[in-house]
């Protein structure tokens, strides 16, 4: 249903193409210093999309409430900094990750027993509850005005967050690199293979004795942690948290990004946010109506004709150009 991709292959060494995103990121850092703020934002959303890819693309859990973890992470980091006065960035990250993991494990354990529409509704309800909470609990979250006054101490005591966002960009890049490595290890492990198996044929995975439910809860928790960390990064970079990190909208946006890039592929989560956010930066401000229209059309086209998103299309072109080596050419 999602992609032709298998999550488990014999050769799991990092190929040269897999270094391209990182080289591109560094090149971007040196060549376009005026866009680093957008760049940091893109990196954060790549991390967020990566976390969604893990549960949606690999485990096949359809959710509309992934922003719950993103938002929780964002608010946790914000509260730890602005209300508790802890300015160390790693403490903030860990706190955000831990809070999101706790919520992920708790809600995952409850809702992953259900399927389809019920599951969709439950994820949506959870993020809606958090949105209400953030909106009403003004003493902690600042409500509709948002939470300002977030202070982040220099990273490792050395690198201050500067107004040109140089530190922010490299910091996000470093976190993303770690997350990428973790996810890559996960999906090529037997655990990753088991997730793909659950996505493709749950009944059979039950039949071979796989602990389907616990595997799903585990991957849900891991993904929630990553989303929480992404949220914390957003808080640290913006030094502000607003209500827009929770609810249906960020979940929907994220879903669109991932679909554009290609679901169920590690690098789909990289391509989607780049294309989406860059396009948004250019188009959305001038033509908001056309922007939504375009995104809507694009979504329908992708769903009807181009499953696998942009990377899926690239795959097909490559296969067309090189019929022989198409199997190997498929970018992951």
């Amino acid at each position, binding site marked *: 249903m999602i992609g032709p991709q298998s999550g488990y292959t014999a050769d799991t060494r990092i190929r040269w193409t897999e270094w391209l995103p990182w080289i591109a990121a560094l090149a971007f850092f040196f060549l376009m210093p005026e866009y680093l703020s957008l760049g940091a934002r893109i990196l954060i959303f790549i991390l967020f999309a990566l976390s969604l890819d893990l549960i949606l693309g690999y485990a096949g859990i359809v959710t509309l409430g992934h922003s719950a973890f993103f938002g929780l992470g964002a608010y946790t980091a914000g509260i730890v900094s602005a209300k508790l006065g802890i300015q160390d960035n790693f403490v903030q990250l860990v706190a955000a990750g831990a809070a999101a993991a706790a919520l992920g494990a708790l809600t995952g354990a409850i809702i992953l027993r259900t399927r389809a529409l*019920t599951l969709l509704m439950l994820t949506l309800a959870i993020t809606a509850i958090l949105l209400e909470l953030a909106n009403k609990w003004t003493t902690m979250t600042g409500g509709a005005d948002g939470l300002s006054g977030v202070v982040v101490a220099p990273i490792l005591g050395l690198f201050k967050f500067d107004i040109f966002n140089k530190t922010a960009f490299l910091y996000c890049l470093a976190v993303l690199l770690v997350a990428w490595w973790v996810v890559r290890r996960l999906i090529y492990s037997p655990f990753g293979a088991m997730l793909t198996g659950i996505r493709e044929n749950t009944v059979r995975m039950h039949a071979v004795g796989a602990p389907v439910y616990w595997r799903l809860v585990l991957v849900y928790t891991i993904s929630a942690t990553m989303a929480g960390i992404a949220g914390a990064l957003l808080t640290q970079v913006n030094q502000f948290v607003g209500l827009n990190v929770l609810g*249906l909208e960020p979940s929907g946006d994220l879903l669109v990004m991932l679909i554009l890039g290609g679901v169920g592929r590690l690098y789909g989560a990289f391509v989607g946010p780049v294309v989406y956010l860059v396009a948004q930066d250019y188009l959305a401000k001038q033509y908001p109506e*056309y922007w939504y*229209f375009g995104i*809507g059309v694009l979504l329908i086209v992708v*769903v009807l004709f181009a499953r696998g998103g942009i990377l899926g299309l690239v795959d097909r072109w490559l296969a067309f150009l090189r019929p022989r080596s198409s199997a190997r050419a498929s970018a992951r």
Partner: protein
Amino acid sequence: MILYVISVGLSVTMGLMGFINLAHGVFAMAGGYILSTAMARFGIPFPLALVIAFAAVALASIVLERLLYSRLYAAGELAQVLFSIGLILISMAVARLVFGNLAAPVFLPDYLRGQVHVLGRDFPTYRVFIIGFSFLIIFLLWFSVERTRWGAMVRAAVDNRAMAQSVGINTKMLFMLTFALGSGLAGLGGALGADILPVQWAYPFEHLVYFLIVVAVGGLGSLRGPFIAALLIGVADTACKYWTPQFGAFLVYAATIVILLWRPLGLFGVRA
């Protein structure tokens, strides 16, 4: 009650046909806009405008169904969700371009504006009218699904599509009409409730959660399910906001979660 009329349409498409159609609010919004335009620009009276809203939305949905939806019946949930989100975005953009940012004005006819005197208390006529109308729709739907040949055919097709087809039911046609009915009901609901739920471009997104809650809580494929759920949610929501304003919509979501965990298929869900 408006929630009910809109949601029952969704229950028809989603429950009977098993398509996760998040774009249902689009049809409701379209209904509202059609009503508003018909009344304000062409001076069509309210009841006739309602009929037009229903018919126009149903017709438009047939086109959409043939062109797009029917390709995705067999597709996974993800594809359906994405597709309908895409539809929502497009419709929002179009609505904003055509009708602007403001809510569409609705001028109720005089006979719906006043108050009615029931049991020593005053009620706004409009709301009484809506409630009465909803009961009428409930009765008609119940009658047609449970007591007519069409209803029997739909139920047969849902239970076992291949079998229904092999005994000579044109399921393609049937699904198309069912879809049109569901969407038409949404249009009717949107038009009817235009004064309570203001029609503006963000409509499909704003109320989406409520529609979905009503359907999910009520149970797919059931007619009285969404009815009771809409009643429950409406009353609970108002009561909560009245008694504990600081919690707001909080309790509604919490209740939704509890109900769905207790009965994953909804209160009156039919096992597929």
